[in-house]
Structures are given as C-alpha cells and as structure tokens.
C-alpha cells in the first residue's frame, strides 16, 4: 500500500507551458523520499500539487493519489479533509507561513481545536505540548508572541509544530532550512529526523542541497526542467550518479566540499 502515488503528473501554466512533465513517484507509509532539483526544476510545484495548492491559472493533469484520495480535480471540500490530516507542508520562509497578525499560540490552537476537538485548559496544554515537541524553549512565551517577535529558527520550528498539529501521515518539507543559518539548519534537520522517526511519518523532502537531502531521506528523485532525470538510493546517487545532469550536480557539490577538506586537513 502506498501513501502517496503520483502518476504522470503534468503541470501547465495558463498559456500551456509545461512546468512539470509526466512525473511519477510513490511514497509508502513511513518512507522518506527526497526531491532534488535546482530552481525551475518544478520540485516545489509538485509539492503544491500534492495538496491541491497550485497557484491560480496552473492546471495539473495525471493522477495524484494521497491516502486514497484523488487530488487532481478534487473539490475544495475534499481537499480540506486531506490537508493537515493526510499531509501537511512546511515552506522555506516561515515568515510567510505564519499569519503575522496572530499570536503563535492561537494559530496553533485552531487546528488542534478543529481536528482533535480540544477546548479550554486541555487546548492550552496541547498548544504548549506542540511547542515543546519542536524543542522550543519557553513555550509559554513563544505562544504569546507574534511571529515577528521570535527568531527565524524559532519561527520555522513553530511552523513545523503547526504542520504536525494534526498528526499527518505525510510531512512535506519544501526547502525548510534554506533560509536558516547553518547551525540552526543542523538543529532543524536533527529535529525533523527525530520527530518523523518517533511518529513513523512519511516525508517528502524537497531541497536543492544534496547533502541536506541525504541527511534526511533514503530514496531520492532528481528533477530537472520538470522531469525526473534520475531516481534511486540517495547514497547511490551521490556515489555513482548516472545521468549527465546528476553528475554535474554531484560534481559541483563535491568540488565545494573538497575545498573545505583540503583546508581543514592540516
């Protein structure tokens, strides 16, 4: 049984330009899949299509089945049933993911109240728990804060807490650490890794950074210009890339990294 089954997904703009071209991939329950690609590869659009969140004017054809629900051409009502419960998403920029005019705690309380039917003190405790789960210090203070009053790393943790609030079966992470500092990125990756393991969640992890993807996932799909050019075990892709593009990608990453090794070899 697969949790996410994408078959021949094609995404077009209003004027017929193809941005994602006959993409197929599957994610089983508890499995971690990486989606690697540079800008313009269509990887982010693919994640949006999984939740029926494509920008206006864009159309998807093919099949996206998420926990048994066909997402392509699903009604908004059907989609609302799926979002959050079956899959939730964390974006690159936490500042846009959180409502700037609402305190973090209230944003977190809303899905908890609706999905789990919690009220009053129980709800309050659940919010605190949710913030503690993502290892936020002083959950009480964070809950009372507005998004701009906490740091970028804390915001991304809050966004993660929001995504996890409804205990989704699939966590979609779209460049969740790209906007963060390296040391914050490392903590965030550890956190995602642990939380996903604890809850046996499946992950669709999107990034341009091979090393980051390899840190989280087992399998990966490499995308270029809307197409999947290579797929397989992440370690295998990094060690023995087969396609020209993947070779260039891995080569570039290796070149930069080797500079670090030569310097620090002393």
């Amino acid at each position: 049984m697969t949790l996410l089954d994408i078959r021949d997904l094609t995404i077009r703009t209003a004027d017929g330009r193809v941005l994602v071209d006959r993409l197929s991939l599957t994610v089983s329950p508890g499995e971690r899949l990486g989606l690697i690609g540079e800008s313009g590869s269509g990887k982010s659009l693919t994640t949006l299509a999984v939740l029926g969140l494509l920008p206006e004017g864009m159309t998807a054809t093919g099949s996206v089945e998420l926990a048994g629900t066909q997402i392509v051409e699903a009604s908004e009502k059907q989609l609302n049933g799926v979002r959050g419960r079956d899959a939730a998403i964390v974006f690159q920029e936490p500042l846009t993911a959180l409502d700037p005019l609402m305190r973090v705690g209230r944003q977190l309380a809303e899905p908890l109240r609706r999905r789990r039917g919690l009220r009053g003190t129980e709800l309050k405790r659940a919010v605190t728990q949710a913030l503690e789960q993502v290892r936020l210090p002083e959950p009480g203070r964070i809950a009372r804060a507005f998004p701009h009053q906490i740091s970028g790393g804390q915001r991304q943790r809050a966004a993660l807490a929001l995504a996890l609030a409804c205990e989704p079966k699939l966590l979609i992470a779209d460049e969740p650490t790209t906007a963060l500092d390296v040391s914050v990125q490392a903590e965030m990756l550890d956190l995602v890794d642990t939380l996903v393991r604890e809850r046996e969640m499946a992950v669709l992890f999107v990034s341009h950074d091979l090393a980051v993807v390899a840190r989280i996932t087992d399998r990966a799909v490499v995308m270029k210009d809307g197409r999947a050019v290579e797929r397989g075990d992440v370690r295998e892709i990094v060690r023995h890339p087969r396609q020209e593009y993947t070779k260039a990608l891995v080569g570039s990453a290796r070149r930069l990294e080797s500079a670090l090794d030569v310097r620090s070899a002393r």
Partner: protein
Amino acid sequence: MTGVQKTGQAPEETGRTPGTSSATPAKSVESAKQGARRSYTLIAGCVLAGLIVLLAAVSFVWLPYAPDDTSGTRLAAPGAGHLLGTDKLGRDLFTQLMTGSRIAVEAGLGSVLTAALIGVSLGVLSAFALGWLDDTLAAFLDILIAFPTLLLAMLIVAARSATLGSAVLAIGLAQSAVVARLVRILVKRVLAQDYITAARTSGTSWPRVVAGHVLPNIWPTLVVNLALQFGLAVLAEASLSYLGLGAPPPNASWGRMLQEAQATFTTAPAGALAPGVLLVLLVIGVNLIADGLRDTLDPTARRRRA
C-alpha cells in the same frame, strides 16, 4: 485550512535560490502579447483625448463665431446656422465648446506640470530628508492634502483674481502634495535597492544617482499617476468655473457653460449636455491613456528579446 499553511507562496523557490533559467521564450511571448493587447487601451485613450485636443488646437486658428458674438437667436435649437444651437445670450454653443476644450486642456496640462514640478522636487527632497526636516516635510504634505482645494482656490482668487491661472495654481498646488507623497514612497523604495549602493561605491554623486537611477525607475509609476491627475485636474477646473472661480468671461469654460445652462436645462438641454459629454470623454480618454501607459512603460515587457 489547518496544518497546511497556504499563503502567497511563489510557485517556485524564491529568495535564496533564484533561477538560472528564468527568461524563457514562452514567457516573453506572453508578455509581448499582453503588451500589444494593452496598447489598444492606449490607442483608444489617445483617440478620445486627441479629439478634444484637436478641437482645442483648431480653436486657436478658426472658430465658427467670435466667442462673444451674441448676434444669434437666444436658445436656438441645433441647426444649420448653429451646429449645436445657441445659449441664453445667443452665443454659438459649438464655439464655446471649442474655446472650452482649449481651457480644459490648458487647465489639465498647467495643473499637472505644476504638480509634477513641485511634487517631484518635494518628494525627492523628503525621501532624502532625515530627522526634523523629514518630520516637517511630512507634516506640511499632510496639511496640504487635508486642505480643501476649494478653500485654497478661494484664497488664491482673493489674493490674485479669478483667472485660469489662479485655478490652475490652486489645483496644481493641491495635487502636488499627492504627487510628493507618492514620489517620496517610490524614491525610498528605489533607494533601498542594491544598485543604488553599487552606484555610490562606484563614486556616483547623489545628484547623478537621482538623475540616472532614481528618476528613471520611478518614472513609469509617476507618469501613470500624472495622467490620472490630469483627468482630476480637468474635473476640478470645471467645478471651480462652475462656482465662478475659474477663467472669466468671455472665455467659455465647460464648467461655466454647465452652470449657465442649468436654468434652461429642461427647455434647451444641449447647452448642458454638450460640455458634459466632452468632459466625460476627455477624462475617460486620459484614464485609458494612464492604463495603457502602465503596461507599455514596464521595462520587463518592453524591448524583450526571446
């Protein structure tokens, strides 16, 4: 919407990893198409406004009758002798319409030029101003915007006299505050761009930065706004003339024509309808031009090569 955070997220990654393959041919074809479609708006606007400008231009060299010729039958119906009939003093309506269009165009141009001159200078100045000067300028602009144009016009007329120039000065001053506020915001936005810092570190002086980078980059938005202000100025002048604060007789302003025809509207509607229709045509025309300019002046749509 629950665990899903739907926002104004761009379809592809933004910020940290902008594209290496951004300018795709298909995209440029699309915007070129859009540019062409939009320029119909511009053409339509130019035709409408051009009609009035043509009337105004012809009025300098030829008029059917002298503007103060009262020899016609009073309130004559439209016919052979008088194309649109005459007013209650026996003056030819079409003649008045022509001189009126001249006044309308002059009022629009004069006000907008005044507003542009004062507004852009003040706006650029206040964008650069710091501390108390910034506060003072901001307060001054706020007061000017809140000040009723009508009261301003009355004061100016009282200080000078009821002429077209007074009306234009009043309208131009009132509009300059709006323009200045817009320019201030636009300039501040441009000044925050890295290319301004790059220019500074290239040794470019502030005056050259303003002339070479700031003004060209605020120009499209500014021109569109000035075109809209032109339409507003024409309307404002008509209102002032209606109240007797505009160009004095024998110059027939559309506003005064409306006022004079008010009493006889039921018996001789042409006297009020004709200037009203022209007023609407001119304002619509100018607004269409503003709309069309908005898109043709966009640098990313213009001169794009696939």
